[in-house]
């Protein structure tokens, strides 16, 4: 369906490239967007920041025609438009680069880019045309990708370029990027920003959603801040600071740095020796890594996701046996012939906060109180004999909800109905409450709002001070750097470097994350 256009001019001077006026959207009783005003100038990079659940993604989905606004109007170059589908959005020159790439891994770059505009019955002509377009685009914006490479073989940064090329090929003048740097190394992020700057130089408009304030500061011209479904401020980037943005986002001052205190590590609590993991498809995911973690110490594992952290977490959590090598902890030795299951490990004092709370940590359809005993449901305290007592686990959950400030404090609400931060707090409360001797933590604050991040970080430090050995895996370099006593960096299944707290340096770690090992000293 073609978008309707009429020419109602707004204002006297040059109209904004993209303008929203009083846009509201609700899902049932949840007001996701309320009276949103947004004005984006042509040829600028405009950032949108906000906590998780602030309504950023809803707003972008309205712009891209995935949702329709309940109220309000949208103007492109001063003309009121209606975007009813993503096809309308593309026709109006809006392109979107999703957080999770929408690419076919088994297609080549050209095939992916031409998807949706193949032209004709035979592919030959469309392919030639696409190759030409790709060539000129990559020359103009410095985005070099081998057009005949399989997308599945490309690294994440290059896949993202393919997404951007795809949008540009479809004629995008306004490019929306949803959390574009989530999976990139610092170097790849900087390269992305170079591309965005050259797009801007060519007159393109970029709208970037992120929750990383430093990125807003380094690349955007203007920034809009969202909180609880409302737009709470617009700033010129040059006239604001990360501190001000953070305050606007959460509505109060937050401590961005964690008070780590000093750690006093004890004996070795967890020891990994020559650990190797080969996937069922024969890919070597972990390649002979060794490290120790001492009691009362946080070991951070930095690295771009997909470099072996996930299989490492699964092995440490007892969910998967190593292919070779061994793990010693809590009186167990885990190797390929001796898999100690999650239940035995928990009984011995392991806590495991998994990387993905939706797929592993929680059952979203279960009540909060059912989730609060997940993995501990055989404990005698949860009931008698073969029965689980709902009253007992409700009381138990109520206590933890008060202690960990989980809102709403209703044990009988399904986990699905909690916000991301409160869902994560349910997992954290469950895994921390038994006072584990070893805790493995993956992405503890992914998709969690700033207020909850601060709380979670404090809890981790407190547990460390009680003598727990903590392994922290996070793609947020800031988080790893501010919490860890030591950092090891993983790339392609190897440990490429180890740094003590005093040596932490973003550039050094970034290079290691990209796989550039320092000379072994």
């Amino acid at each position, binding site marked *: 369906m073609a978008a309707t256009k009429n020419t109602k001019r707004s204002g006297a001077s040059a109209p904004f490239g993209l303008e929203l006026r009083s846009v509201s959207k609700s*899902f*049932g*009783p*949840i*007001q*996701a967007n309320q009276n949103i005003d947004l004005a984006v100038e042509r040829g600028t990079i405009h950032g949108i920041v906000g906590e998780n*659940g602030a309504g950023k*993604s*809803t707003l972008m989905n309205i712009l891209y025609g995935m*949702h329709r606004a309940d109220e309000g109007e949208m103007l492109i170059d001063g003309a009121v438009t209606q975007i009813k589908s993503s096809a309308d959005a593309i026709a109006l020159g809006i392109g979107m680069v999703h957080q999770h790439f929408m690419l076919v891994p088994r297609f080549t770059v050209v095939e992916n880019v031409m998807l949706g505009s193949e032209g004709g019955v035979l592919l030959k002509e469309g392919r030639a045309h696409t190759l030409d377009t790709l060539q000129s685009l990559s020359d103009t914006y410095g985005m070099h990708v081998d057009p005949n490479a399989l997308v599945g073989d490309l690294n994440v940064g290059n896949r993202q370029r393919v997404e951007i090329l795809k949008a540009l090929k479809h004629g995008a003048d306004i490019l929306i990027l949803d959390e574009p740097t989530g999976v990139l190394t610092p170097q790849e992020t900087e390269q992305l920003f170079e591309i965005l700057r050259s797009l801007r130089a060519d007159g393109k408009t970029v709208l970037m959603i992120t929750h990383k304030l430093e990125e807003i500061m380094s690349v955007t011209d203007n920034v809009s801040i969202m909180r609880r479904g409302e737009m709470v401020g617009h700033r010129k980037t040059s006239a604001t600071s990360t501190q001000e943005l953070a305050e606007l986002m959460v509505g109060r001052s937050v401590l961005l740095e964690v008070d780590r205190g000093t750690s006093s590590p004890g004996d070795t609590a967890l020891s990994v020796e020559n650990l190797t993991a080969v996937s069922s498809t024969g890919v070597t995911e972990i390649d002979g890594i060794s490290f120790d973690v001492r009691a009362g110490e946080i070991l951070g594992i930095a690295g771009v996701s997909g470099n072996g952290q996930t299989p490492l977490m699964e092995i440490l*959590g*007892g*969910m998967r046996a190593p292919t070779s090598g061994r793990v010693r902890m809590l009186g167990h030795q885990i190797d390929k012939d001796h898999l100690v*299951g*999650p*239940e*035995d*490990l*928990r009984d011995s004092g392991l806590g*495991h906060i*998994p990387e993905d709370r939706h*797929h*592993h*940590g*929680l*059952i*979203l*359809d*279960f009540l909060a109180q*059912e989730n609060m005993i*997940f*993995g501990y*449901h*055989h404990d005698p305290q*949860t*009931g008698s004999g*073969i*029965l*689980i007592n*709902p009253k007992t686990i409700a009381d138990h959950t109520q206590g933890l909800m008060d202690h960990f400030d989980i*809102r*709403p404090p209703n044990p009988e609400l399904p986990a*699905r*109905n909690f*916000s991301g931060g*409160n869902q994560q707090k349910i997992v954290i409360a469950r895994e921390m409450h038994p006072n584990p001797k070893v805790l493995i933590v993956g992405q503890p604050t992914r998709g969690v709002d700033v207020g909850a991040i601060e709380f979670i970080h404090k809890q981790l430090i407190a547990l460390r001070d009680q003598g727990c050995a903590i392994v922290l895996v996070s793609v947020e370099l800031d988080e790893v750097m501010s919490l860890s006593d030591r950092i090891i960096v993983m790339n392609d299944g190897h440990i490429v470097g180890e740094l003590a707290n005093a040596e932490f340096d973003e550039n050094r770690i970034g290079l290691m994350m990209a796989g550039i090992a320092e000379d072994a000293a």
Partner: protein
Amino acid sequence: MSGPTPDLPRWADLYLLPAINLIMALIVSGIVIALIGENPFEALGVMINGAFFFGDSLGYTLYYTTNFIFTGLAVATAFNALLFNIGGEGQAYIGGLFAALAAFAIGPIFPWFIALPLVVAAAALGGAAWAFIPGLLQAKRDSHIVITTIMFNFLAASLMVSLLSGSLMQPGQQSPQTAPLPDAALMPSGTWLFGWLGIDADRTPLNLSFLVALGCLYLYWLLIWRTRLGYEIRAVGKNPDAAKYAGINVPRIIIITMLISGAFAGMMAVNEILGVHEKVILNFTAGYGFTGIAVALMGRNHPVGIFLASLLFGALFQGGLELDFEFQVITREMVLLIQGLIILFSGALAYMMQKPLARAIHAIMRKPSLEDTHG
């Protein structure tokens, strides 16, 4: 953010939605009856009368209900672990075989209060045994349970034909059925129970299995919602990856769930074989195993829902016969059509009205709950 469609409140999902589905099926059935020249309201009256009020009809209705409770529970149990057990038919069949074998073996030796429980247990064991292999194949080999349970229905049917016309056939007879079962292995009839209570009731197929079925509904509720095993079954059904993280042995739970599911299906044979026929006959399962799928869907896997859906289908079976009897133009096929429409609307199209209904309910209740869902 909960996505574009709001959730349906639990009460509406459990009661309102099935009621709407039923009404839609009745409306379409009414149109069909009107098209062939009969008064749909009169026909409905005959059906209700014929299912509940006319003579001994209630006994027949509850007898059918008993079958549907067992097969409905079989489907519902498996569904909690997201397993679609289509094999209730075959499992009930083999349950009947085990019951008969046990009855012949121990019936003549023990008094009824020992023999009967053992024979009932044998029926459950037979059903469980027949569900075990599909469960094992699903757990260890990822062979889809729908395919294997369907195949096992055919295997059971062939096996029973061969046995009932072969080694198990009553000596000196020509029909494919076993010899009468020993008295000690038989379920007391409803007439006997009512007589014992001092009530004079007509002889109907209703027997004590009905009370066993009600007990099984309670056990099912207890198992799924109150036991550690039920917790693990639900966890596997909702999120097998998370179940693995929590240390739940997923293949083991799949096998156990299928055993329990098969046991419930096998119990259907108790009603038919021990309660009514008093011998194993060919095709005594008569499609009740398949109707159990519609019962579980309509009953939303909840014991109360399963009971109400079983009662509905029991009434349909019994009232349908009455309809066939009363009206010249309404044939047996027409009754099957009406039953089919109800299965279609409450089974296959069970969630057709879910979204419109959810939107309607939220539109009505929007204002009062604006605050408490946020955050």
